[in-house]
């Protein structure tokens, strides 16, 4: 299409909405990665086949959309316009949904979500408690948009903000608006986005770049992927606006290679935008030109750090470098470069459309807007949640997340990925914003929120994170390369029962060195998981070091599995499932675990029937008592 301008964009938008009026009903199927894993694509195809078979294709639309967020309940099907919410849909349910709901206009009761506390069946998506307390200004459109269709985005006012800035705003005005909105970077550190743009804009250079950092490496965080997968045009539009404000002519989206669907969808979206003249030369008939390339990462956590990321785009090892010069001064190939993360870019069109004043009403004094978190771990409602800044952790975990799984006791919530920390129950009243989380020893990070229950060992968690950072440390600077290794070693020793008096002090001391001496944030923040677990759960460290016991019954070297003789019914289940034949016994006779052979894989505990529950784990003194008893017997 040539010479595509604003009038035509508006015309197209009207045409799309007009054509959709005929087909009022739309069956939307969540197509996020979680639902993919549940098999949503087969469900979507089956819906299409059935609609066709019944000759309903002129009345009903079937759309595979972006992620709806409620991953726990996938595959999710929402029937619009009413928003009827069906969950855990299987292939055999489809005929019934078409016959009952689409044709018969009735609800299929058994597919509804049941609120666990009240046992009430909930019909509409908006009434599901998981969604009720959220404010989905960024993520909400995911559920309506087929990410492979630019038309879906345009129909929902997509690229309207772009029109506005290209013809009604100067680059200064755009930057002023973004500064006034109070939008801060969603990648972790929380620098004021507009200010960052301004610095880059003020540097004199013929060539400038903007980059979208989609190297979402924090384990347990996947909101950026869901945005890029589910609504790629919102990110692209944000980048074009940013490029216009800064004066950049080229952009990169750096995506983790572990996210193949995101790569595919965003690449496709860029091609579509190019075809319509929304990218390339003379965008929408204006004088502005800008284009975007997609760069696939190659599996290195450190490339999420901005200077490493640029090195990676340049085809080198993802080594960070000293700052200053900052990327805004000397970035990609030495040119001024502005880097923001996916969620930050996705906020931009919204701010332009609705205005900085509207935007800055949401959130707290220092942290504006909403934040998307991936609420995962030992929580009932796993999924992606978007909440206004300032909501308390408690509200997110209990009201939206439905509390801790299996009625276990809450122990900690971890935010900020490997750079963040664990916060205990006493901190649950903390409101979410950049400053309070940092003060608590954690950080906002990109938005992972991992809930841990009483069965989680905090020393093991610290070891897990340090193992991660040690593995991912690029090795360029000594404090990080050697420091993380030492931290892991001490922590591993503690979890193995080889901890010594003074280890905690050693950990703290090393942490200080890493924080002060590391070149980039990977090393500087790596000790946070250790420091926060020591700060809030020192007793667990003490138990491991002094009593050689793991109170959460996790650390393999400190626990034993034991069959309670008074409970065992002799059903042979554990015996048959033990992979190392460590269990002896006969039918209807008590089974016994040979502790010398046991590899502590937990298979026996897993298969022991819930009614019987004869397998227990023991640590510390109780463990010793049982071991003594059994050795006496064998003598």
């Amino acid at each position, binding site marked *: 299409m040539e010479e595509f301008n604003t009038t035509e964009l508006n015309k197209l938008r009207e045409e799309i909405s007009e054509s959709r009026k005929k087909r009022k009903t739309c069956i939307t199927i969540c197509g996020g990665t979680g639902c993919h894993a549940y098999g949503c694509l087969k469900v979507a195809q089956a819906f299409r086949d059935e609609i066709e078979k019944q000759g309903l294709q002129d009345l009903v639309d079937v759309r595979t959309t972006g992620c709806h967020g409620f991953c*726990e309940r996938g595959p999710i099907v929402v029937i619009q316009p009413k928003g009827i919410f069906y969950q855990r849909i299987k292939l055999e349910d489809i005929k019934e949904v078409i016959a009952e709901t689409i044709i018969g206009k009735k609800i299929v009761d058994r597919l509804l979500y049941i609120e666990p506390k009240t046992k009430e069946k909930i019909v509409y998506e908006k009434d599901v408690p998981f969604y009720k307390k959220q404010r989905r200004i960024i993520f909400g459109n995911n559920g309506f948009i087929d990410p492979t269709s630019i038309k879906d985005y345009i129909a929902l006012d997509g690229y309207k903000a772009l029109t506005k800035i290209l013809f009604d705003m100067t680059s200064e005005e755009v930057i002023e608006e973004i500064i006034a909105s109070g939008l801060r970077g969603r990648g972790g550190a929380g620098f004021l986005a507009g200010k960052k743009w301004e610095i880059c804009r003020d540097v004199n250079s013929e060539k400038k770049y903007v980059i979208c950092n989609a190297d979402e*490496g924090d384990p347990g965080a996947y909101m950026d992927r869901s945005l890029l997968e589910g609504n790629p045009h919102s990110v692209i539009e944000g980048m074009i606006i940013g490029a216009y404000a800064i004066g950049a002519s080229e952009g990169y989206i750096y995506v983790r290679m572990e996210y193949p669907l995101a790569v595919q969808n965003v690449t496709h979206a860029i091609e579509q935008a190019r075809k319509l003249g929304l990218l390339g030369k003379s965008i929408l008939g204006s004088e502005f030109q800008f284009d975007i390339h997609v760069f696939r990462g190659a599996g*290195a956590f450190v490339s999420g750090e901005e200077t490493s990321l640029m090195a990676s785009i340049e085809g080198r090892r993802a080594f960070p470098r000293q700052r200053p010069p900052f990327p805004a001064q000397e970035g990609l190939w030495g040119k001024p470069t502005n880097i923001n993360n996916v969620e930050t870019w996705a906020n931009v069109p919204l701010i332009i459309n609705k205005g900085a004043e509207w935007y800055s009403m949401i959130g707290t004094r220092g942290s504006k807007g909403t934040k998307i978190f991936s609420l995962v771990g030992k929580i009932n409602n796993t999924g992606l949640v978007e909440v206004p800044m300032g909501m308390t952790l408690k509200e997110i975990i209990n009201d939206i997340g439905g509390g801790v799984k299996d009625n276990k006791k809450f122990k900690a919530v971890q935010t900020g990925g490997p750079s963040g920390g664990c916060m205990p129950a006493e901190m649950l009243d903390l409101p979410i914003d950049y400053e309070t989380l940092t003060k608590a020893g954690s950080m906002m990070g990109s938005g992972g929120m991992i809930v841990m229950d009483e069965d989680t060992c905090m020393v093991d968690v610290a070891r897990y994170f340090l193992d991660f950072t040690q593995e991912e440390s690029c090795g360029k600077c000594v404090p990080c390369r050697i420091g993380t290794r030492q931290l892991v070693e001490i922590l591993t020793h503690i979890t193995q029962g080889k901890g010594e008096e003074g280890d905690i002090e050693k950990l703290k001391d090393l942490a200080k060195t890493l924080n002060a001496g590391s070149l980039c944030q990977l090393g500087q923040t790596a000790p946070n998981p250790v420091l926060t677990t020591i700060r809030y759960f020192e007793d667990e460290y003490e138990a491991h070091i002094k009593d050689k016991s793991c109170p959460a019954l996790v650390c393999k070297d400190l626990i034993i599995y034991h069959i309670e003789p008074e409970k065992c019914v002799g059903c042979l289940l554990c015996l048959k*499932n033990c992979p190392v034949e460590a269990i002896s016994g006969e039918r209807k006779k008590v089974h016994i675990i040979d502790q010398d052979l046991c590899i502590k894989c937990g298979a026996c505990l897993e298969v022991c029937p819930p009614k019987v529950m004869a397998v227990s784990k023991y640590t510390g003194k109780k463990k010793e008592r049982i071991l003594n008893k059994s050795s006496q017997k064998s003598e």
Partner: protein
Amino acid sequence: MEKLIDEFEGDQRELIHILHEIQKKFGYIPAQAVSRISKQLKISESEIFGVLTFYKAFSLKPRGEHLITVCMGTACHVRGAPMILDEFKRKLGIESGETTEDNQFTLETVNCVGACALGPIAKADGEYHGQLKTREVDKIIKELMNKKRNSSK
């Protein structure tokens, strides 16, 4: 392979793209590829080795027939992923990152696949297996072995 490499023109900025393409096509980066790339992009072989060993995406050894990837994300970790990994290691008799002697299985870990609701999760030849129990590990391995047999019939 030569054709694939020769299609790329330019300099170092193409390096990671080329490596991705070769890895995709051959399952690993053969040593000949490195010298060819070195000539094509005019960068030293040592530089290329530096880059390709830096990133997890590239491997200098061929992978096995079947690839099993266990997610070690935080959510999976607290839900018991280490036990799942141990069971795979034990059943296959290899460490993570290794390939069985008969070249059938490669076992790898990944930092996070972002399907945390299904944790602990593993991917076997691209297919997700969620909410895994240790006793299901054996089944997954057997399924993969059968798949081979069925397809060769």
